[in-house]
């Protein structure tokens, strides 16, 4: 279980009121909000990249921000929104690094196949398109076999068919018990009957982060509209 205790996040001082919520495993957590509202900053805080400005983030009673990077890599995987264009590594090498970083082994070929990446296996990650690189980074994060997966607008560079299969993969991970936290603008791909979504709606200006627990897609959409205004 992921526990946020009076968590505040931001670059220079906290923008929003303290946020407290318990997130059980196997949940789909959506971060909603306009550009610049702080979705990426919250994700970078949850992933341990930057410390919170106040409060605590705990996983199974342990504070995420005092873990070593190695310990954290076994629990939380993160897919950023920026592409890593300077790496000369091949797609296959990147995906196997995911397993290495968590001290695990994985069937890289199977993972590549299930993410439609087999034909790119020997391409350099800097030579493929942004959408393809996004899929590679997701496969890499899955190779870490963590219980929590954090993603910053993971479908931003994907075309429509890729989005569809991407969401199918994602929902399967949630069904398998992974906690998936992601910022996104395309909730239309979530099936109407997906149970118990958690949504964190971050207001554009300072104020309280609105927490919706155990809602369905329609419930999210109602708030989505109000937040994007």
């Amino acid at each position, binding site marked *: 279980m992921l526990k946020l205790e009076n968590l505040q996040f931001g670059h220079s001082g906290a923008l929003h009121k303290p946020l407290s919520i318990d997130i059980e495993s196997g949940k789909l957590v959506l971060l909603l909000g306009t550009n610049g509202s702080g979705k990426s900053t919250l994700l970078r805080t949850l992933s341990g990249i930057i410390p919170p400005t106040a409060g605590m983030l705990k996983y199974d009673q342990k504070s995420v921000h005092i873990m070593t990077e190695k310990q954290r890599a076994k629990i939380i995987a993160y897919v950023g929104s920026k592409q890593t*264009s300077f790496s000369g590594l091949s797609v296959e090498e990147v995906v196997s690094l995911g397993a290495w*970083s968590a001290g695990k082994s994985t069937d890289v070929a199977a993972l590549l196949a299930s993410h439609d990446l087999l034909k790119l296996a020997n391409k350099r990650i800097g030579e493929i398109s942004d959408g393809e690189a996004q899929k590679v980074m997701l496969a890499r994060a899955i190779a870490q076999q963590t219980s929590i997966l954090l993603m910053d607008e993971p479908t931003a560079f994907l075309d429509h068919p890729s989005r569809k299969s991407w969401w199918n993969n994602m929902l399967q991970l949630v069904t398998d018990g992974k906690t998936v936290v992601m910022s996104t603008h395309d909730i239309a791909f979530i099936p109407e009957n997906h149970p118990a979504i958690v949504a964190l709606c971050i207001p554009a200006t300072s104020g309280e982060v609105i927490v919706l627990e155990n809602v369905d897609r329609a419930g999210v959409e109602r708030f989505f509209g109000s937040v994007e205004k």
Partner: protein
Amino acid sequence: MNRIVWIVAIALIPALFAVELLLGSVPLTFSEVLSALTNNDQSLQHLIVVKSRLPRAITAMAGGGGLALCGLLMQTYFHNPLAGPSVLGITSGASLGVAAVLLAGATGAVLPAAAVGSLLVLLLIMLIANRLKSQVSLLIFGLMIGYLTSSVVTILQQGASKDALRSFVFWGMGSFADLNNGEGLLLLTMTGLAALVAFALHRQLDVWTLGNDIAATMGVSRRRFTYQILLITGLVAGVITAYCGPVAFLGLAVPHLARGIWQRGNHATLIPAVVLSGMAIGLACDLICRAPGAESGFPLNAITSLVGAPVVIFVILKGRRVF
């Protein structure tokens, strides 16, 4: 294909090493070199081979391999294909240290002065590297450090003796020739150890190429990794610069050549590939310095710049996304 590349690279080093011992103002035959190496008879051949050519060959190998390794590590660390010991002002820092002690007449302190100077600049760059987002701004920063140090050096020169000035100018041209066998072997051992330590970090280096955020979530401690890279590059580049002068471009250019030849981006391949190529290119550059026609030899930096500057132009023009 890949196996052939490795075999050629490994075979090239003893071949060039042998040529270093055979050729020169007094050409020797293979058996003359062999007997000079094995018999300590104080003959002319013995003096030429053991006192002059052997240490020079060892130093060229160690210097080339070591600087190339530093270049690779810095390019990976800064996510910048134009990083390298000479470009980022690290050798300028060493120059400043050496200028300060040489021009003050303290010739014995050249080694620590160069090491301290280069480490200080490297530390400074690592502290501000986060603010320098683009490749070009890091490059301009290095250039400015170069200008600053050279102006301080010029001011220091005003009060210096002729002899001190002369030895500083010669040091600044770079040379693999001024070491004895013991010092050469020390350099070679250091380069070898640095390569082993870097190899032990090859996965971390790979992860680091995916970006600082991703690296932080894939088990790489930014602080620790920074110290490790700082220690290896500062020590190796600093000591080589102290002994051989501010050798230009080898550190920057060799990693690009190795990437082009091996066609790989992972550090398990790149580290040995870059070190081997650096050794071979160090030997080759030294051989060109000693080419017939040059009275007292060409300055090393003239040759390495001739090799390295086109590589920089090529990298900029190609604007490669992958490096």
